[in-house]
C-alpha cells in the first residue's frame, strides 16, 4: 500500500523522465556541421535535458526511498469556498469541449461555434439557468465578433457553406466589411 502510494506520487516525474530521455536521444540526431572550436546547436538542449533528467531521477529516488511528501502550491493556502471541491471530470469535459471547438471553428465559423462553446462551457461550469444561458451564448459572440473584427481588426474564421453565409449577414448588419 505504502509502495503503491509512492509509485503513484512518482508517476508524473517518471513520465517527464521518459520524455526527457527521448528528447535527449533526439539531440544526438540534430543535423549540423560543427565549426571547430565552437559549441554546436545541440549543446544547450543537452545541458537543459541532462538537468531535467537528473532532477527527475533525484525526485523519484526521494519519493521511493525516503517517501518525500507531495508538493503543494500557493493555491493550497486559499480556503475552500462553498461549491469548491474535486471536479476533475468537469475539467476533462472542458478540455474535450475546447478540442471540439478548435476542430469545428474553421467549419462553423467563429460566431456559430462560439455560441455553442460558451453554452457548453457554462453548462460544464454547472450553470443551469436556461434563459440567461441562451441569452449570454447569443449576445456574447455578437459582442466579441464586433470587438475583434470591427475594433481590433482580427479576421476571425467565417466558416463554410451556410455558416459562412450566416456570418457574412451578421457582419453586414454590424457594418464590418
Amino acid at each position: 500500500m505504502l509502495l503503491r502510494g509512492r509509485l503513484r506520487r512518482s508517476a508524473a516525474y517518471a513520465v517527464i523522465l521518459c520524455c526527457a530521455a527521448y528528447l535527449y536521444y533526439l539531440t544526438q540526431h540534430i543535423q549540423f556541421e560543427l565549426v571547430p572550436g565552437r559549441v554546436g546547436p545541440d549543446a544547450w538542449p543537452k545541458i537543459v535535458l541532462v538537468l531535467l533528467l537528473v532532477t527527475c531521477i533525484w525526485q523519484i529516488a526521494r519519493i521511493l526511498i525516503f517517501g518525500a511528501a507531495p508538493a503543494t502550491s500557493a493555491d493550497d493556502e486559499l480556503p475552500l469556498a462553498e461549491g469548491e471541491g474535486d471536479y476533475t471530470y468537469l475539467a476533462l469535459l472542458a478540455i474535450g469541449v475546447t478540442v471540439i471547438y478548435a476542430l469545428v471553428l474553421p467549419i462553423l465559423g467563429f460566431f456559430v461555434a462560439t455560441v455553442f462553446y460558451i453554452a457548453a462551457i457554462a453548462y460544464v461550469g454547472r450553470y443551469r439557468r436556461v434563459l440567461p444561458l441562451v441569452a449570454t451564448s447569443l449576445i456574447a459572440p455578437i459582442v466579441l465578433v464586433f470587438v475583434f473584427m470591427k475594433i481590433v481588426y482580427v479576421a476571425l474564421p467565417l466558416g463554410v457553406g451556410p455558416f459562412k453565409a450566416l456570418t457574412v449577414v451578421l457582419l453586414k448588419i454590424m457594418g464590418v466589411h
Partner: protein
Amino acid sequence: MDVLHSLGAGLLHVLSFEDLPMLLLGLLIGMAVSIMPGLGLVMGVVLALPFTYRMHIEPAIILLTAIYVSGTYAGCFTAILYRIPGEPMDVPLLWDGYSMTQRGEAAKALGWALVAALAGGLISSAVMVALAIPFSNAALRFGPPEYFAAVFFGFTSIAALAGKSFVNAFISLCIGLWIATIGVDQTYSAQRFTFGMPVLMGGLPYVVILVGMYGLGELISRLGRGLPKIEKPPDEQTVGTSFPSLREMWALRATFIRSSILGTILGIVPGAGATITSFISYGIEKQYGKRRDQLGKGIPEGIVAPQIGSTASVAGHMIPLLTLGLPGSGATAVILGAFLLHGVQPGPMLFTSPDSKIVVYSILASLFVGVIGMCLMGFLWIKVVVKVLEIPQAVLVAIVMVFCIVGAYADRNSMNDVWVIVVFGLLGFLFERFRFPIAPMVLGVILGPLAESSFIQTMVSYNNDWTVFLRHPISGSLIGLSIIALAYPAVREILGRKSKADSIVLQPHVGGES
C-alpha cells in the same frame, strides 16, 4: 535633475489622449480580474496582451502595467468584505481584514488597505525611479558572461521562490528552457525538435504559450476545482471606505517603513512576486511588530503590512525588467513579451536614446499616476467594482476562455496557434494538477533564447572556458547569489523538518489530552 526632467516629460505623455485612456482601462481591468476569484492579475495582463498587437509600444506597456499595479490592490475588497481572496497574495489580508469586517469595521479596514496601497506604491515607485539610472549604468558594463550569469540568477531565484517545491519549480524551468529551443537554431540553421512539422520551424509563439498556460490552463483548473458560489454583496451601506486619521497612521509608521522597504527590495529579486512579499511582510510584522501578539485578531497592521508588500513589489519588479530586460514574475514576463512583440528589447540601451528614454519614463510616470488612480477608483467606485461578483462565474469563465483562444489566434490569424493554445492549456492544467508552478516555465520560454545566446557567445569568446563565469567580478557575484538561491530551498527544508520535529516533541502531551 535630468531624471526629474525626464519623469516630468513622461508624466505629460501619460496624461495625453493616447496614454491616459489605456491607463484608466488598465486600472479597471486590473481591479475587475483581481476581484474575481481565480482570474487574477497575471491572467488580466495575459488577456490584454493580444489587444496590444496594433497599439504603439507606450500605451501598450502602460495598459499592462496598470493592470498589474491595480491587480495587487483590488483583491483587498473581496478578501476584507467577503473573506474571498481573489489571489493567494490576498490571503494575509483576510486574517485581519475580515476580522475587522465581522466587528463592523469593514470601511475602516478598506481605508487602511487603500492608504497602504497608496503609500507602498508611491514609495516603491520613487525608489524605482532613483535606481533606474544606476542599474542601467551597471547593466551597460554587462558582456555575455554577465548577462548569462544575470539570467542564471533569475532562473535559480525564481525556481527557489516560485513554488513550494524547488524540484517542481526547477523541472518547470527546464521544460520552459527546452520549449525555447524548438525550431531552427539561429547560428547553424539546424532544426531542433521540429519533428518534421513546418509549423514548428519558427519556434512556438511565446504569447500563445503565455495565454495557454496562464489563461486557458488556469480556467480549466478552476472548472476542475468547482466554481465557488459567491454570496450577493452586502447592502450598499457596508461597502464603503473610511480613512484612518493622521494620528492612527503615525502610530503605524514603523509598519509602513518596514513593509515599503521590504516590498521594494523583494520586488527586485526575481521570483519574489507579490504573493511572497505579501506573506513575508505579514510574517515580519508578526515577528517585529509592536502589537505582534494581536495580529490575526483584526488590527490594521495585519492589513497594512501585506498590502504595502504586494503593491510595492510591482515597482521593484519593473527595475530589472526595464534596466536588464529580466522579468522577475509572471506579470513582468508578459510585459517583457509585449516589449518583444513591438520589436523592443528592454535593457540599458533603452536609457541611451531620447526616443526610447521617453517611453521608459512614461512607463515609470504611469506607475505614480496608476497608484493614485487605482486608489481614487477604489474609493469612489468600490460599489460598482464589487458588482463584478454578481456575474455568474461559469458564464464569465466561458467568455474568458473564448478571449484566450481568440487572443492566440489574433497574433498570426492562424488555426495552428489555436491548437498550440489548446495543447498549452492542457499542459497548464496538468501543471496545476501536479503542483508544478507555471512562472518558472514561462520565464524559461521567454529568457531561454537570451540564456542560450549569451552562453554560446561566452563559450565562443572565451574558448569554451567555463571558469570565465566565476572569474569576472559581476558574473562571479551573480553566480554566487545563484548558489545561495539554490541552497535556500535545502536550508528551508532542513529548518522546516527541525521545527516539525520540535513540534512533535512538544505535541504528545497535547495529543494525549484529545
